[in-house]
Every structure is written in structure tokens, then in C-alpha cells.
């Protein structure tokens, strides 16, 4: 794993000597392939140039002398050692657990800057280990920060700089075992994130239409808190026993305790999977179609609508085709859509689909969805386009690392919004990003793109990508943060939520009160005060 970038050390994008993009490694569908269109897209979208490089200033090997020496609570360490739970205060282990994947966190790492990092890392193996650690932490007044996969994008893992106690990162990622079923929960970060983390952030997966979000999947949760262990007495599928205590746990973002055991629904592996895609003449028609699909409750496992910019982005990731025949077919398709059907290549957008289940039902389902799409002017555009759309979300974080080598920084953020405001929020937030960039002195026009990524009865989840070329800016991260802040304000002003699945962390804390009201804040605070009066779980997220 990389310590200052996304994902596996062997997988990364780079521009080869011919100036073509390549993806290394062998883990992904794109691995080892040449992506000829990426360079042109990259240069024309951002005004970036391969001549202007900004490699990470520190080498891939971490320089441990740059990290602050650990503040250790000797008594705690002594007692913990006697329990035999593995622990470390090695600089690399500590830095690795000091951050999530927000832009400013990665940017600082690439420049070799480390703020406050945990003083120690512990690896409990089972529930009882966690109970012991929490007891000792309470006894010696040590701050605990639970750590799952480290894929947070809400500054949730950052150590509060004002924390004076010894900070112990409690890594739970090794506590999961494999067993050959599927839960159907597939967030974009699923290769790296952890079950405990999903529960603690109220995560959502791309196939939620079939399997549900985390709150629908969880049957039982056990959490260790400073006050003791919280759990239910049985595994009944639904209970009418007052407010569901699980909902204190889901989304608690590590402020109340450590999730040690989760019982989840499992499903047999799907027999058949099929990708698909539909091209719409414009985004408005696409949204109308998705809304109709949601109304008829026939959404496939995943249905996403990418806007024109994102469609072009996805298109740029097309790997080199091997035969003349396929390239000829591609040309023919393009001709059919733009010339024969009259779609404007700068306005059309594409919906990507993923069907799952037994073969017959999938085909039936597919027909139903394509029929609806046809009513909104949609044309089926093949499996390949669909699959590439999903690939984009798994490699986007690797692409960000590539961008950062060439003066381009970016980030994604999400919201959920009622159906009648989807179009307005997409238009206004994208326009706000462009305007703010201009106002803040960004020299090149930014990439500002969105997709409707989940559908619900009452609305949709919208996902924004935003990136810009920061050449000529003295403090790009600050500019970036200002723009993201403005974009979030715009989201809230347009009726969007603070977060659909990324969580609040410390990044979006300032808007919590307006989001849940003063009384709501008081309720959450009083739970925190009861469960953790000494703020042992002191990551200061959420509240």
C-alpha cells in the first residue's frame, strides 16, 4: 500500500516516453494497458502540460526523522504490553494511520509535511482485546482513535491538533475474515475500507438498489464504549423498542466507541451480471428517465447518469483497441449517434447500468429499463461503455495521484437531494465551482462535473468531481478548500444534504447544527456526554 497516495503500491498511472498514459500492475481491468486518449483529454481539460511536473517532494520511502517523536503514556504502554496485544510506535505505522484521503491530507504528505500523528498503533484481534484496550485507555486517560481502512474523505482521521493526551490509533482492519458469500455492499473504496468503518460512517454501496445501504444490511452490532459494551439481546429482523440504538452507532464516526462485531445479511453470489449503458441527448432527459425508473421502482443494481464532461472523461479512459474492426465499429457508433440521431456531442450524456440476478430476470429487467429510456430519447449504447463508467470510479483516486504529478488537484464530494431539485443543484453547483475558481484566481478553467449516482423514491444522490490546474497559485490547497466550501454552501442553499455517505468528520462539522437543528445537536451531544464523559474517543468528529 502507498503511504502518500491511493491504493496498492504496484498500481499507478504514468505517462510513458511516447506521452501515452499507462496503468501499471495487474490488479485491474486497465492494468498493463495503454490509454491513448488520456493525455489529450488531460491537456485540453486542464490546460496542463506534461512538461510541467510536480512530483512528490519526498521519496516513496518515508523519512521517519520528519515525524514528531511519540508522546507516550508509560503506564498505559506497560499495562498494554502485559496483555500481549500487538502495538507499535514506528513512525511509518503512525503516519499511515494519521490521515484519510482528503486532498489536503494527501497534498501535505506528498510535500513531506506531517502534523499531529497518533503516538502509537495497536492491533486488537478480537472483541475482548478491544474491551481491554478501552478499559486501559479510560484508566490512564489516553485518547483512542479507531481506524478501519483509512479511506475517509471527511478529515475524520486527522488527529485534533489541540489534543495533549497520548493518541492511540486502534486499527481494526485485521479483524475481518473471508467466507465466500457476498454482502452486496460495494462502496467505491471497498478494496480498502473496513466493515467497522462502513458502520461508523453510515456508508452506502453502489448496488444499494438490490442489497440496501448499510443501515438495511446490518442485523446486529456490538460496540465497546467507555461505559461498557452496547448490543441488542437478539437478532430479530425488526424491533419496535423505542429508537433503534443501532442508529446511535451507525454514523457515530468513532466518537462513541469501537465497533467490534457486526452481523450482516448475506446473499448468494449473483448468478449473472450484465453491464449496460444508455445515451441521452442531454442531461435533463437523462434525469427525467432516472426519475421515472425510480418511480416505477425498477432500478437495476446500479444506475448512474454521468453528465457530458464526465462522459468525455470516461471516454478518455478507453484503452487502446487491438483490432481495426473495433475501431471501425466505434466510429460507426459515433456517426450514428451524433450525425444520424442528431445528438450534440457537447450535450449528450450517458447512463451506466449494472444488472444482477438470475439470467432470465436480468434480461427481462434490462428490457424494461431500456423501454423506459427510449421514452426519454435514450439509445442503448452497449455494455462496454457501461463497464468503463464503473471502472472510472475505482481508478479515479489513482488518477488524482497522476494529476498531482502535473499541477492538477481535485476531489469529489456528494450530496442527496429531492428529485425536483436534481437538475438545479447540478447546474448551480457546477456553475458556482467555475465562478469561485475564477474569483479565486485560478488561471485555467476547472473540471466541474457531476453524476446522479443513486436513485431513491424521494430523490437522488449526486456526486461531483472537481479539479483544476493550480499553476500560478501560491497556496493551491487553500484555494481548493475555499472553493469546496463555497460548493457545499451552494449545495445546502439548493436543498441538498450535508452528506449522503461520506460523513461529516471534521470537514463538514460547521454545518451540522443547521442540518439537524439545535435540539438535534443537543440530543447527539447528550449521548456523547453519557457514553464517553472523558472524551476518550477524542477524534472530535461530527459534533
Amino acid at each position, binding site marked *: 500500500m502507498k503511504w502518500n497516495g491511493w491504493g496498492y503500491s504496484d498500481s499507478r498511472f504514468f505517462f510513458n516516453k511516447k506521452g501515452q498514459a499507462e496503468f501499471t500492475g495487474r490488479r485491474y481491468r486497465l492494468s498493463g494497458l495503454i490509454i491513448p486518449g488520456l493525455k489529450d483529454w488531460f491537456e485540453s481539460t486542464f490546460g496542463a502540460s506534461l512538461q510541467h511536473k510536480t512530483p512528490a517532494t519526498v521519496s516513496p520511502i518515508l523519512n521517519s526523522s520528519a515525524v514528531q517523536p511519540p508522546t507516550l503514556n508509560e503506564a498505559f504502554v506497560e499495562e498494554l504490553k502485559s496483555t500481549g496485544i500487538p502495538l507499535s510506535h514506528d513512525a511509518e505505522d503512525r503516519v499511515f494511520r494519521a490521515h484519510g484521503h482528503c486532498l489536503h491530507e494527501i497534498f501535505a504528505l506528498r510535500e513531506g509535511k506531517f502534523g499531529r500523528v497518533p503516538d502509537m498503533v495497536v492491533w486488537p484481534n478480537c472483541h475482548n482485546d478491544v474491551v481491554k484496550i478501552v478499559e486501559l485507555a479510560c484508566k490512564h486517560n489516553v485518547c483512542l482513535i479507531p481506524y478501519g481502512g483509512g479511506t475517509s474523505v471527511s478529515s475524520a482521521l486527522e488527529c485534533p491538533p489541540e489534543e495533549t493526551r497520548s493518541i492511540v490509533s486502534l486499527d481494526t482492519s485485521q479483524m475481518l475474515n473471508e467466507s465466500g458469500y457476498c454482502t452486496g455492499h460495494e462502496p467505491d473504496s471497498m478494496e480498502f475500507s473496513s466493515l467497522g468503518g462502513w458502520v461508523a460512517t453510515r456508508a452506502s454501496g453502489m448496488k444499494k438498489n438490490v442489497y440496501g445501504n448499510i443501515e438495511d444490511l446490518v442485523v446486529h452490532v456490538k460496540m465497546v464504549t467507555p461505559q461498557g459494551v452496547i448490543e441488542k439481546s437478539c437478532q430479530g429482523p425488526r424491533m419496535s423498542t423505542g429508537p433503534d440504538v443501532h442508529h446511535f452507532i451507525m454514523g457515530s464516526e468513532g466518537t462513541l466507541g469501537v465497533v467490534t462485531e457486526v452481523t450482516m445479511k448475506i446473499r448468494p453470489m449473483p448468478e449473472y451480471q450484465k453491464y449496460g449503458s444508455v445515451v441521452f441527448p442531454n442531461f435533463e432527459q437523462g434525469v427525467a428517465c432516472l426519475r421515472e425508473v425510480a418511480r416505477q421502482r425498477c432500478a437495476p443494481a446500479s444506475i448512474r447518469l454521468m453528465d457530458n464532461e464526465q462522459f468525455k472523461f470516461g471516454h478518455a479512459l478507453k484503452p487502446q483497441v487491438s483490432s481495426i474492426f473495433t475501431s471501425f465499429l466505434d466510429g460507426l457508433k459515433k456517426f450514428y449517434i451524433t450525425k444520424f440521431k442528431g445528438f450534440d456531442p457537447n450535450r449528450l450524456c450517458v447512463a451506466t447500468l449494472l444488472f444482477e440476478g438470475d439470467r432470465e430476470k436480468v434480461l427481462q429487467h434490462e428490457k424494461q429499463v431500456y423501454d423506459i429510456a427510449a421514452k426519454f430519447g435514450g439509445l442503448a449504447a452497449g455494455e462496454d461503455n457501461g463497464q468503463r463508467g464503473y471502472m472510472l470510479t475505482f481508478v479515479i483516486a489513482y488518477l488524482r495521484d497522476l494529476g498531482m504529478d502535473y499541477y492538477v488537484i481535485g476531489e469529489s464530494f456528494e450530496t442527496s437531494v429531492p428529485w425536483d431539485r436534481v437538475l438545479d443543484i447540478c447546474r448551480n453547483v457546477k456553475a*458556482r465551482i467555475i465562478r469561485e475558481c475564477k474569483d479565486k484566481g485560478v488561471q485555467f478553467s476547472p473540471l466541474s462535473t457531476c453524476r446522479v449516482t443513486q436513485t431513491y423514491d424521494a430523490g437522488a444522490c449526486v456526486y461531483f468531481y472537481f479539479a483544476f490546474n493550480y499553476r500560478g497559485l501560491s497556496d493551491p490547497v487553500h484555494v481548493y478548500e475555499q472553493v469546496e466550501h463555497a460548493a457545499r454552501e451552494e449545495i445546502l442553499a439548493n436543498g441538498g444534504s450535508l452528506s449522503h455517505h461520506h460523513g461529516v468528520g471534521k470537514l463538514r462539522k460547521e454545518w451540522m447544527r443547521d442540518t439537524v437543528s439545535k435540539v438535534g445537536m443537543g440530543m447527539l451531544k447528550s449521548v456523547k456526554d453519557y457514553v464517553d464523559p472523558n472524551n476518550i474517543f477524542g477524534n472530535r468528529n461530527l459534533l
Partner: protein
Amino acid sequence: MASEAVYTHRDPMLKKRDDFEDILEERRNSSDLRYALRCYIPVLYKELTPCKASELKSMVLQSDQLRYVINQLQQAIHEHPVVLLPSHRSYMDFLLMSYILYTYDLALPVIAAGMDFMAMKFVGEMLRMSGAFFIRRSFGGDKLYWAVFSEYVKTMLKNGFAPVEFFLEGTRSRTCKSLTPKLGLLNIVMDPFLKGEVFDVSLVPVSISYERILEEALYARELLGVPKPKESTSGLFKARKVLSEDYGSIHVYFGQPVSVRSLAQNRVDRCQFNLIPRHIPRKPGEDIHSFVNDSAYRLVRAQEENMVLKPWVLLASLLLQNHHQMQVAEQKQGMALDELTEQAVWLRDLSRQYGAFLHWPDHVSPSEAVSSSLSLHRGLVRISEGRVQLALEQAGGQTRPGEPCSAVTPEEELLNQAVIILSCASYRNQALHIFLRPALLASAIHTASSSNKQEVYNSFSFLRNMFSNEFILCPGATVQDFEEACYLLVKTGVLQINQQEFVVTERGHRTLGFLTRMLDPFLQGYQVVCRFLCEDATEGLTEKQFVPAVRKFIIRHILTGRLRYTEVLSSDLQKNSLAALLRLGAVQKLKGGEEQGTLKVNKVMVNSLEDTLGGKLPTQKAVVARL
């Protein structure tokens, strides 16, 4: 040609003016046929052309670099929905705007026009073809009408089919003062932004200034109570005679577009619309109301600032003041021409210091400028034996040539004179926004019991509050206005401030005198309305009866010589003062039942307001607090 004049570049105002372009020049140099062929809405322009040529000596379109601004407007139309907000002084405004946009190949706007225009046979159709749609003057209760109408405007905005144009002031200003803005339509055009349906809306204040207004005498009559003739086409044709006269030039100034988004920044919490479906109409909340109100005032002030003032405006101010002074002194009427010229030059420099956008022809001598202005307005002034005076004595004979002069009663003669005075006053009013704040301060110094800054401020704040229905005074900006007034008077060396005391300088008296005289007719007018309410108002006086009754009262006062300002006869002033008294709670309007609209006068309070206005009572803290 004014636009060809050579100006020095020292003064930014002159620089601004350099960019005027004569848009009729080409028109004058080409044949009518070629011109007619250019029109793509022939009905509109065929009718319009004969008017234009005779009516306009020069027509000038202004902006910072004309092309640049037109391009900017073009771009603004392309980027965000655009709302054009012209000032409203004449029927011509409709046609002018469409004409200019047409000339520059910009999208023709849809224009909200009063329903009464539609009734005019040919002209209604003409307006409609130039993009107007007609709305009822009031539709308070009719929810369906409101819904259809606001949806129409919003659809226009959201889809960006065409710019929307309407008049913030709601109706033509008969007095040439800007009117208190109406908020209904502004609310409608801001709504799509506040609810997130468009990213932004650009509001473009447009100032249209006329050197001579077509409806000049008509307005004066209307203000004096001769009812407004129903808009009819035959009426327009009868009025053709006026078209052969010279009406000077018209200036159209497109102000900087104002983005609603930036106006609303940190002002409005747009989240408040999140929980209710947006298609359900809701009465705007207090914060939205005050936001729209403030924006409206800001836009009207922007219109005012960009109004081009002609020398005549200054001459009219001077002549009116002189007329009243002479009246008191019972001296020979009129002013020597060279004295008028001297004063005009003095006032020109003063108004420039106060930031007036004055179009004074610097390439000719002041006396030439003065006499050409006077000759343009020869209906209002007479020059005899080298003295300039208002054309009062002939007024009667001119309007009714058939009747013998003996039939004219003193009352009728007074009304005939008042037509001239009010016409002049309407030109003076064009300069009021320049002098208003300093004039309020000058009057405050005049009436305040001491020259202590706090005392003067109290007095200023009282006057400002009293007149906030009369002039464009942004609500809640008393302190800013006071400081602006102090700044201007100190800057021009009229005042000095020593340890919280105002000291009038030696040369300051002339300016202060001019400024107080500027405001004096209004002060007196408000006082006389108060006196009427205390002395003469009968029990059960209704709002409808108010204007005729107060008019009678005032005529009596003028004829007996107890009141010298004929312009107090203006129903505009009377209505504004009543509105102010209603606002202050000195008069109450009863609602419902048989007494609907009956005015209930709090005589004690009205009396004390009158005395305070007259400087007989100090501005008591109590009064201020109650206001």
C-alpha cells in the same frame, strides 16, 4: 453634435460622457426607404419613424465604451437571465428600449406594461409587437391572475427566451422624481434565483433622461387634479402637434449589471426554501422582503445616479427659487440674463462637486448654453428686456385662446400659473437626488435648536424620516446619509466641524441658502397638509376626499397670500405627505365597515409634527423615538 464635443480628461464624469454615441446619425444620413427595409417589425417602425426624426434633435446612447457595454450586455444575456429596469418618465420609454436593443441586434425584451395601454387601439398593438405584455395595475386579491402572470415572467427568465423589462417605479413619474420602487415584479424575477432555479439573474438599471418631456404639461395638469385622459389613439393623434416641436435630446444609460447572487450573498438564507415544494407560492418572509426592498432602492439610486442632467435643470431650479423670493419681496419679476448665467455657472460647478452627471456643453460659452436651453423651453420662460422670468401671465391666454380673458377667475388663473410652475418643478426635481442629502442637512442646521452635531443629527433624522415617502431614501441608512451629507458640505467648504459643533463658513451661506430653498417648498407643503388636517378636516374625511379637500384649502391659502409655494398644489406631494403621516401613525385609516377608508387624525401629534417641521418645536427625543 454633443457627442463630438471636446472634453478635458481631468474629470471622470466627462470621460464617462465621451462615450455617448449618436445612434440616429446613420438614420439621418440614409434614406427612409433603406431604413424601412431594415425593419423587421415594420408596423412598429413605420409608425415610429416620423415621430423620431422631428422629435429628436440628437439621441445619444451612453456607456463606458459603448460597444464594450453592449457586448457586455450581450454576454450577460447569454450567460444569465437579464432583467432590464429602465426609469419611467414617458410613454417613449417602451419604444426607446426596444428600438435600441433592436438597433444593436440584441434580443428584444418582453415588457410588462400597464393594462390601460392595451386599450389604445393602434399603439397597444404596437407595444405588444415590440414585446410588451399587459398587466393589470393592481391585482391584489386575484391569486390565479398572479400565478399565471408570475409563471409567465419566470418561464421567460428560466428558459432565457428574452430579457424581461419592467419599470421598478411601477408607473410614469409625473414629477420627474424617482418613485418609491414597487416590489411585486422584482420579487418575481428574484424568486427563481432564491429558489435555485437559475444560477444568477442580472439586473440592469437603465436611466433614460429627456431634455424635454413629451407629456410635460399633461403631467402638471394631472397633478393639479385635471383627470388623466383615458389613453386613446385619437388622443395621441390630436397630440401630433407637439411632435413637430423640438424636444431636445434623450440620453439612455445602461448601468452596470447587478448580479442578484452577489446582492444576496450573506444576506439571504436560501435554505429556507428547502422544506416546501417550490411551486407552492408563499408570501415572502420578513428577510426576503427587506432584501428585495433594499435591492430595489439600490437599483433606483443607480438609475438616479446615471440620469443625465441638462443645463435647463439647473436653470429651472434657479428660476423657481428666484420666482418665490421675488414674490415675497414683491419686486419686479424675473432675473437679469447675465445674473442667471452667473448663478448657473456657480450651480454647475457645485453640482459637479456633488457628483452630478451633468451634460453641460463646455465647447460653447455659458451664456450660449443658457440661451439655447431657454429657447428649447420657451413655453415655460419669457425673456423680456433682458430679464428672464417664468411664463406665468400668458399661461391663461395660451391654453384657452377662444375664451375672453375676463372669464378667468382668480382660481383658474392660479391653476394656469401652477401648470407652468409644476412643469418647471418637474425639471428642478431631476436634480433633487444630487442635492437631497446636503439639503436635508442644510435644513436640519436651519431648524435645529443648536449647531451641536447630535442636535443636528436628530433634526436631520426627523426630516429624513418625514420625507422618506417623497424622495428615494434607502430605509435604515440614516447614518450613512448623514455622513455623506456632512462629507459633501465639508468637502465643498460650506461647513466646518469643530468639536461636535457645525460652523458655517463665510462662503458657505450661499450654498446653504440655495440648499434650504430647494427643500423649502416640500417643508411648507407638509406643514400646510398638517394644518389642513388639524384645522379644516371634517369628521369622516375619507382617503378619496382628501386630495380635493386639501387642494381647496391650499388654493384658499395661496389666494390669501398665506402660502407662497404654488407647487404645493401638486397632488403627488399631498399624497406623499398623507402616506408619511399614515406611516408615522399621526393619521389612521379605518378599515372595514361603512367607514372604509376614513381618516382618523391624531391632532396632537399632527400639530406637533407641523411645529417641528416649521422649527417651532425642537426635535424632541420623544418624537424621534416614536418615529
